[in-house]
Each structure stands twice: as structure tokens, then as C-alpha cells.
């Protein structure tokens, strides 16, 4: 693949890119509000679990609050974002599926559970949460000479994507539901950030070609000096345009528009995977940090 072809391939993946885009403001939650949100969810869950999760032990830590629940279940809520994760407390190899259903059936089971959570109440106006991807967690055994046992399905996972004004908010799945073989709720994660319904401004979006160039510049910076140009070993496996949701332990005040690409690099020795983001506007205040941390507390030099 030539450099030009690589850039064209990147750019062609950016679909439905508007000329201008609004910058939705995100509700800023105090710690007490994140806890209230978590406790509302526990209350909702209790209605379908015979009151099981009404009692809890609440432990407030520096960056999260941990709710220890009956039956070994727990819920954690992150103060910075309000993102929360419920874990049902089942052992991971307990309650396996008796057979592996087809994908349609698994998605149907996940959607039935999703309806119990009433997603529209968990997000703002002009927002939606839509099913995005089915995951399956499976297990098997293998002998020393390579003979495999039949696969068993341990869990199904449904990933959902948050849309604001019909524009996807990318990042980790905005919500996810994990079910056991008898459709008990094994885990539920909700990291979508609710907007205020107001916009802090409107920005012109740079062209898809410029977005591709910005992604490519990052890629070449990571590849440093190398004999083989990176475009010969790299291939975009997914590209998209949308807003960015930061990680659950980070605060975020507005939704930042970005061009995003997942890129695989295969050299003769190694496989590498990157998720790269490029700012989709020329506003310097809308450039997401991508510096990465320095190592902390490592040993002295050998």
C-alpha cells in the first residue's frame, strides 16, 4: 500500500461527517450526585431481584464509591464521570449456557434485559443508546497433543453506543450488559455521560482528508525512524467520526468531536494495535491529550 492509498483508505472510512458540529455540554456531577445515581440504579435492580440490593455497605474512596451488596455482588461508581459498574457476584464458570444459542437469540435476551433498565431515562433529550455489538465469553480444554474439547458458552455481553444529536459518542461501550446462561444479570456497566441539553458553541469540522492526515501524522510519530515505511505494514480496521467519551476516571465538560481510527500493524515479527484520535476542528481547546503517562515509582537504573 502506498502512502496516498493509505490516506485515501483512512479518509474513505469517515462517513456522515457534518460541515459544522455542536459542542454539547456535559452534566457535572458532585460525588453525592454520582452516589445518588448509583443508588437509584440499585433501587431499580431491587425491583426485579426481590429487594436483594436494597441493603448495602457503602465505602467512599478517593476516586470512587464502592457498594458491597448481598450475594457477593457489588457496584462501583466513579466520582469523576458518574460511570458505574454493577457485578452480580456470580463465579465466572457458574451458570454456563447449556448449549450455544445463535446470535439472534443471544441479542434478543440482552435486549429484553436492556428494556428493564429504561435507557431513555438514563440519558438526556435528543440522545439514544443503541445496540452495537455482541460479545461471547467461551471456554474449552486442550490436551498436550492439541485435542480440544467442545466449546462452552459462559457469558453473553451486549455493547451499546450512546448517540447525541444522532452523532455517536465513541470510547468504551457506553453501556454493556453481561448475562449468565440462565439470563441472570452478571454485570452492567454504564459510562455514557448525560449532556445538559445545551451547547457551548458550534465549530467547523475539518475535511475527512485533513482528518486522515492528522491520524497519519500520529502514526508516523509512533513509528519513528524505521526502514519500512509505516504505511506498508499498517492497515485501518475501523474508522469513524463522532464525539469522544473520556475514560471513567477522568472529568469531561464537553463532548469533543474527533476523527478516530483503529489501526493494525503487522511486521514480520510483531502485531500491534492502536486506537488513534485526531481533533476534528481547528479549535486548540478541543485537542484531546494523547501524551501518555511517565512511569512512576520504578526501580533505579540497573
Amino acid at each position, binding site marked *: 500500500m502506498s502512502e496516498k492509498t493509505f490516506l485515501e483508505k483512512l479518509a474513505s472510512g469517515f462517513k456522515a461527517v457534518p460541515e459544522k458540529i455542536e459542542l454539547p455540554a456535559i452534566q457535572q456531577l458532585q460525588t453525592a450526585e454520582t452516589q445518588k445515581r448509583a443508588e437509584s440504579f440499585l433501587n431499580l435492580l431491587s425491583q426485579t431481584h426481590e429487594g436483594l440490593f436494597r441493603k448495602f455497605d457503602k465505602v467512599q474512596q478517593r476516586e*470512587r464509591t*464502592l457498594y458491597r451488596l448481598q450475594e457477593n455482588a457489588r457496584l462501583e461508581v466513579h466520582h469523576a464521570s458518574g460511570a458505574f459498574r454493577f457485578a452480580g457476584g456470580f463465579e465466572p464458570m457458574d451458570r454456563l449456557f447449556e448449549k450455544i444459542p445463535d446470535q439472534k437469540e443471544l441479542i434478543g435476551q440482552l435486549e429484553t434485559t436492556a428494556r428493564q433498565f429504561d435507557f431513555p431515562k438514563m440519558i438526556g433529550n435528543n440522545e439514544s443508546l443503541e445496540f452495537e455489538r455482541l*460479545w461471547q465469553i467461551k471456554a474449552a*480444554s486442550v490436551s498436550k497433543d492439541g485435542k480440544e474439547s467442545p466449546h462452552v458458552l459462559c457469558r453473553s455481553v451486549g*455493547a451499546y453506543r450512546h448517540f447525541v444529536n444522532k452523532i455517536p459518542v465513541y470510547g468504551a461501550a457506553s453501556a454493556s450488559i453481561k448475562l449468565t446462561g440462565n439470563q441472570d444479570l452478571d454485570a452492567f456497566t454504564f459510562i455514557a455521560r448525560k449532556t445538559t441539553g445545551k451547547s457551548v458553541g458550534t465549530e467547523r469540522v475539518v475535511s475527512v482528508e485533513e482528518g486522515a492526515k492528522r491520524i497519519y501524522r500520529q502514526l508516523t510519530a509512533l513509528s*519513528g*525512524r524505521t526502514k519500512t515505511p509505516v504505511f506498508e505494514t499498517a492497515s485501518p480496521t475501523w474508522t469513524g467520526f463522532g464525539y469522544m467519551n473520556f475514560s471513567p476516571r477522568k472529568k469531561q465538560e464537553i463532548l469533543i468531536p474527533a476523527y478516530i481510527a483503529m489501526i493494525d500493524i503487522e511486521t514480520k*515479527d510483531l502485531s500491534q494495535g492502536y486506537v488513534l484520535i485526531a481533533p476534528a476542528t481547528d479549535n486548540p481547546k478541543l485537542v484531546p491529550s494523547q501524551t501518555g503517562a511517565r512511569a512512576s515509582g520504578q526501580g533505579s537504573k540497573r
Partner: protein
Amino acid sequence: MATFGIEAIRHFSHARSAGYGANDLTYTFNRSNGLRRKLREANHTQRFYWTETNCFETDFRDTSQGGHDNQWTDNVDLIWFETHGNNTANGPYMVFDTAQTNWVTQGSNWRYGNIQLEWFMAFSCKTVNKSNVGALWNIFQGLHIYCGAYGNMYDGWTTEECGEDVGDNLTDGDPVSEAWHDGVSDWWVDNHPITVCPANAYVYNNGNIRWSQSFLNRDHYWGHGTTLSDVSHAQMVRLLFRWSEG
């Protein structure tokens, strides 16, 4: 409480000069710092945290193969290793940014658990070939679980908190296998984690596997639930593995 060690490499300029096609990473230390912080907050003991060119191939190689794993990797309960990887017929294949004494470590030189190691966590791409999981057979010498990936493990803003997530899961009481699967999955990027453990004849049960008694189900980080007894290499009759696909 338990001990852990970390080796993490973000920059690969020396490896590239030596002909390895290794690009730099961005969020390596977000992940390794995050795991370190969470385990230390729960009063676990860091034995070492080597980074960049202080990570040596000999730290991973068994003493019987001329390495020093008795001082490092096999001298802690849990090791977190992040670099670029792949697999060969010899099992995992992972690169360093210095040749001390080799540029790469290979699974054929690993023998873990004959001293101490229970859990090996590799945040690297494709360190397990899902069609040849048996290539890991000999690394289990008391090791409980190998946590790796059978596809790429992505470096990006949605995986920067994987270390903290795994650490929280371990210390909140999840079994190690579940802590890994949940902690490194964001259910968006194509991370494909896999956990592999040995099974003795009782657990294998002539093919009617007692999953509930396996390391995958019941083995917790020290102090946060049940930790099962070692399965010696001689007792192994099968490898059990669990993976996320989608």
C-alpha cells in the same frame, strides 16, 4: 499480602534499530502505573518495576535455560508485562528494547511457578495462538493462570485505565481470570483476552470438566478470596482456557 512485579516498555527505538518492527506505544505507563497504584493501595508489595531498557529478557527466562527468572518474574506472585508481542510454535514471543541478552523472550524458555509465580499478565498482542493453546503447556510448573490475548491488544485512550480496572477487580474480590477479562475489555476495541490454566485429573474429570473447581473460576489474588493450591506439572492432564470473542 501478595507480591507483584511490573516490566513495561513504551519506547522501542533500539529494537527498531536492531530490525524489529516495533512502534512506540502511548499509554503503557498509564496502565502499569494504574495497576501498581491499585495493588499498593490494597497493601500489596511491589518487588520491582522495571521500565524501558531496564526490562531484560533474562528476567523471564528460566534458570534451567540460562536466565534469572528466579530473581524476577518467578519471584513474585503476579507479574504484569507490557510490550509488543506475537506467538510462534514455541508459544508467546515478546520484544524488549535492549538485548540483555536477547531482544525477544519466547515461551519455550519459560518455566513458571516452580519458585513462586501464580499469575502472568501480558498486555501484548497475540501472545496466545487460540488454535495452539497447547504451546503453553510447559510454562505451567505451578503457575495458576496465564492472562494474555489471542488477538491484538490496543493502545488507545479507551484502554489507558486497564491497569486500574484489573487492579480494582483483583482487590474487589473477582477471580483473577475474571479480573483480567473484564479489566482489559472495553467492549468496543477489538481486544481479545484469553486466560489459560492447568487442570488436574479431578478437575478434568474424564472430559466432564468440573469448571467450578478450576483456577478460571475460583482462583483469587492473595487476600481477596480463595486461592487454590498449585497443580504441579506432573499432575496436569489438560489446559483449560477461556476467551472473549466478538
